[in-house]
């Protein structure tokens, strides 16, 4: 190391101007060891002074300087030291510490006479001016004296005038802040140690310390040294307020930043990928269809659009503390607009949101234009028929095989016939009046739900399952649900719609043409139209009485349909085929009664109660401003179903899990009773197994018979023998 040889020479040349023993040199050299604590301003003060030349702010003389050095000499020395500090190659271990330490030492000598105001003003100035430059010099590399150098700032012992002799056991500075950093005897005794051998153990110690700090940590390539460098750089660059109190957070942030460098401007953050994809899809919603004149498009758009004013109903529902947030509502609006563009839609409404386990469903209630019949339905039916047909011949084959094997034994055919399937309602009638589209998030594709069959509704009433969020997930339940989650979802939507879609009394009225009640089997009218003369019911009245609200969807009968159909009435073809059997069956089975439900447009006051509790709860949305409030009706039977009305407007919404409220715990359906056994006939006759006594009696009788038979044989043999003998 060439530097140490140079530097000491430089250091030691200058103090020759001082009178005094060589002790000073040792003292100078011992400064880093002693780790002179010094306030930043003081040191900078001296540096500043040094850089400015003879400072104006050093009034005192080195009166107490034991060696009696003159002030200008001291100053010059200090100056030169500072310049050396500035110019000296930073690779040197002692240099920055030493002269500054010496200066601080010198300054400490004078500090008793230093008035506090002397420093406060200058301190602030130099903090701003000098500190930055000083530290910038020191930034590139830090080494242990640097660390110890900086550690001098954290506890200042300005008042402490005692210099501690550097008789230490280790060359490292002691760093408990409580102890006096350096003590100086009153007489100014300076510890003296020979100059030449001393640097070496210190050098070695310094290098050891640095090597230790440069060790890379176990989990990463980062060493404590580099980390501290980064941390301090960060602090100095950012200059936060009160850095000590947020030291831990700065530490953690620095660590984090080391591993998450934002250098890559070309690559996207892989973690955020799904978020970006969704954002892209939703961005597509916001872009209007391109091409064409802008003006023309605006005019077209200003015309009546099928998409309802979602924002308005969202506003009303928000008054009622219900609904999704406003930006989500707007996205739903855009998604509905997209749906309307893709499908031939006549009327459209946002039905609500059904929550699921892994994702939720946004449901849109839609009516197609006249004549736009769905083709998917027919495909579905064909598939079902094919499935049914495939089963029958299979059963026939089995019987055929058995016939071949055992001609005599024919497996008796089961006489159980599945209950007749209740036919599905036609589209646009009853439960299938509207078509429903679902999507999981606005921006994704809308999927159409199939029509609901009565069997599905009947089964859905018996089970209680959460929706998973995937339409093709199976619904595993008992009784087994005939369909997958899409069918179950559709069935629940049908039930909810039938039970909770309400409107203020008078909004809808029956059409003028009324069908004969007799022809429809007493099902009542099933069509209504808007009342053009509806004037709105005052909100207070809507809240007070439930009779002001009516259902405008048909009630679903226990059969699963809205209009009753006698399942035993078969079509003529089937009757001819199964005439004989059917006649018997009809006579045996009970007569099916016609099911009647409440007619359309019945008021809510007629709804059945749940456990002495009204099935509906009405509220005024805001009691503080009743003039502008909205009447809100909440269903207790289907938690999550809401209806609001204000003036001439009303709306329904459902947001919830899609289950009915039941005060009692859910009881799963019991398995069916064991089927009756085969009818006894000449071919099949059951006999009970003989009991133990009977068996024993039989065996005793057999043994007796056997014994008797043997005896007879013996008798015969004896007779024969006798005969022979004779």
């Amino acid at each position, binding site marked *: 190391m060439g530097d140490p040889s140079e530097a000491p020479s430089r250091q030691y040349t200058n103090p020759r101007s001082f009178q005094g023993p060589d002790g000073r040199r040792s003292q100078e050299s011992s400064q880093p060891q002693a780790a002179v604590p010094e306030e930043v301003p003081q040191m900078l003060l001296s540096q500043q002074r040094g850089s400015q030349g003879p400072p104006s702010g050093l009034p005192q003389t080195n009166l107490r300087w034991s060696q009696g050095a003159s002030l200008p000499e001291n100053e010059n020395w200090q100056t030169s030291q500072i310049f050396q500090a500035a110019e000296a190659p930073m690779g040197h271990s002692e240099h920055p510490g030493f002269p500054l330490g010496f200066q601080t030492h010198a300054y400490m000598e004078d500090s008793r006479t230093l008035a506090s105001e002397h420093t406060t003003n200058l301190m602030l100035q130099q903090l701003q001016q000098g500190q930055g430059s000083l530290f910038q010099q020191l930034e590139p590399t830090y080494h242990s004296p640097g660390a110890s150098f900086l550690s001098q700032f954290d506890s200042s012992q300005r008042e402490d005038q005692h210099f501690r002799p550097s008789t230490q056991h280790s060359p490292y500075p002691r760093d408990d802040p409580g102890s006096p950093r350096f003590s100086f005897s009153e007489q100014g005794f300076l510890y003296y140690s020979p100059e030449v051998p001393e640097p070496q153990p210190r050098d070695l110690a310094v290098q050891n310390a640095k090597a230790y700090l440069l060790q890379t940590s176990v989990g990463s390539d980062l060493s404590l040294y580099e980390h501290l460098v980064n941390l301090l750089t960060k602090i100095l660059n950012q200059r936060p307020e009160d850095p000590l109190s947020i030291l831990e957070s700065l530490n953690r942030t620095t660590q984090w930043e080391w591993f998450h460098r934002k250098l890559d401007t070309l690559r996207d953050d892989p973690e955020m990928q799904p978020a970006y994809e969704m954002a892209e*899809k939703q961005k597509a919603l916001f872009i209007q269809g391109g091409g064409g004149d802008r003006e023309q498009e605006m005019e077209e758009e200003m015309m009546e659009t099928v998409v309802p004013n979602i924002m308005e109903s969202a506003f009303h529902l928000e008054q009622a503390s219900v609904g999704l947030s406003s930006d989500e509502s707007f996205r739903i609006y855009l998604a509905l607009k997209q749906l309307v563009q893709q499908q031939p839609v006549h009327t459209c409404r946002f039905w609500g949101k059904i*929550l*699921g*386990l892994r994702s939720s469903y946004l449901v849109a209630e839609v009516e197609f234009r006249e004549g736009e019949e769905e083709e998917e339905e027919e495909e579905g039916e064909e598939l079902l028929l094919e499935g049914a047909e495939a089963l029958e011949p299979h059963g026939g084959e089995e019987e055929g095989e058995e016939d071949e094997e055992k001609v005599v034994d024919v497996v008796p055919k089961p006489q159980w016939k599945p209950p007749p399937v209740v036919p599905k309602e036609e589209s646009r009638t009853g439960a299938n009046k509207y078509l429903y589209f679902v999507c999981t998030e606005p921006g994704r594709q809308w999927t159409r739900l199939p029509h609901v069959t009565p069997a599905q509704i009947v089964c859905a009433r018996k089970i209680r399952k959460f929706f998973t969020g995937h339409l093709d997930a199976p619904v595993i339940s008992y009784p087994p649900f005939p369909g997958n989650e899409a069918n179950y979802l559709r069935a629940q939507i049908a039930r909810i719609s039938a039970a909770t879609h309400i409107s203020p009394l008078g909004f809808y009225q029956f059409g003028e043409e009324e069908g004969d009640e007799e022809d429809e089997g007493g099902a009542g009218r099933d069509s209504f139209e808007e009342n053009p003369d509806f004037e709105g019911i005052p909100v207070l009245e809507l809240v007070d009485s439930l009779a002001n609200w009516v259902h405008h969807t048909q009630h679903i009968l226990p059969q699963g349909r809205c209009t009753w159909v006698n399942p035993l009435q078969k079509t003529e073809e089937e009757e001819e085929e199964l005439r004989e059997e059917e006649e018997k069956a009809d006579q045996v089975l009970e007569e099916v009664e016609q099911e009647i439900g409440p007619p359309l447009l019945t008021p809510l006051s007629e709804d059945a109660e749940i456990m002495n509790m009204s099935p509906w709860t009405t509220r005024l949305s805001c009691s503080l401003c009743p003039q502008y409030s909205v009447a809100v009706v909440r269903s207790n039977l289907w938690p999550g179903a809401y209806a609001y009305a204000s003036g001439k407007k009303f709306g329904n919404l459902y947001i919830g899990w899609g289950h009915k409220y039941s005060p009692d715990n859910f009881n799963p359906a019991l398995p069916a009773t064991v089927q009756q056994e085969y009818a006894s006939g000449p071919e099949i006759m059951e006999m009970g197994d003989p009991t133990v006594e009977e068996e024993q009696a039989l065996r005793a009788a057999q043994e007796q018979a056997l014994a008797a038979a043997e005896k007879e044989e013996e008798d015969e043999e004896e007779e024969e023998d006798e005969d022979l003998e004779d």
Partner: protein
Amino acid sequence: MDAESLLLSLELAAGSGLGLSPDRRAALLTSLQLVKRDYRYDRVLFWGRILGIVADYYIAQGLSEDQLAPRKTLYSLNCIEWSLLPPATEERATQMAMVKGRFMGDPSHEYEHTEFQKMTAEDDVVVQVKEETRLVSVIDQIDKAVAIIPRGALFKTPFGPVHVNRTFEGLPLSEARKLSSYFHFREPVGLKNKTLLEKADLDPSLDFLDSLEHDIPKGSWSIQMERGNSLVVLRSLLWPGFTFFHTPRTRNHGYIYVGTGEKNMDLPFML
């Protein structure tokens, strides 16, 4: 949800469909400030809303400096005047088990149920339970069962008290979908049962609470991403109406309960 970030939290939790109307929001913002001042709480949480037949209860909770200390619960019917509820005790919890059905909305409403006395030959005793008591125990049950925070939001000091972690930067997206990144916001119950191997990996200042992984029944939490994959929402299936939201990589998190206050006992059938 924190009363300080009430508006943002309500927006984020709105995915479940139930929130607050503007007038209630305004009332809450002002009244919760006053509650914080009057009761000298360190943090005030808006806990949620319990729907009753006649009226709804709005519930708030106040926390002291130690986040795990027992919380004070307040209720209000109009979001302006708040009343302190008594702390929950075990006896009240056992009494509550007999009461079923919806909340009425009237704090002085009394539920009656008959208790069968085996020993005495007298008539069955009719026990009356006030709705306020029921409210207390339901809130306590919900808190113990489903109140959650993300991992890292609280940290424990060596002396014991638990503080809010000011340097919590949010869960990373890879962790946000796992149940193990969320802890129950209550005194830990199952930590002692962990094996030494498991405990060795834990950070004692952050992992001092039960995680959601071992909740019974399994699958009683539904984790979803909403708002285009930028928001994690956890909904409890055991107490339907409880929603927890968190924006990954940010400090926003909170929970709210808006529901009827009834446990979903049919959960095992529904999964």
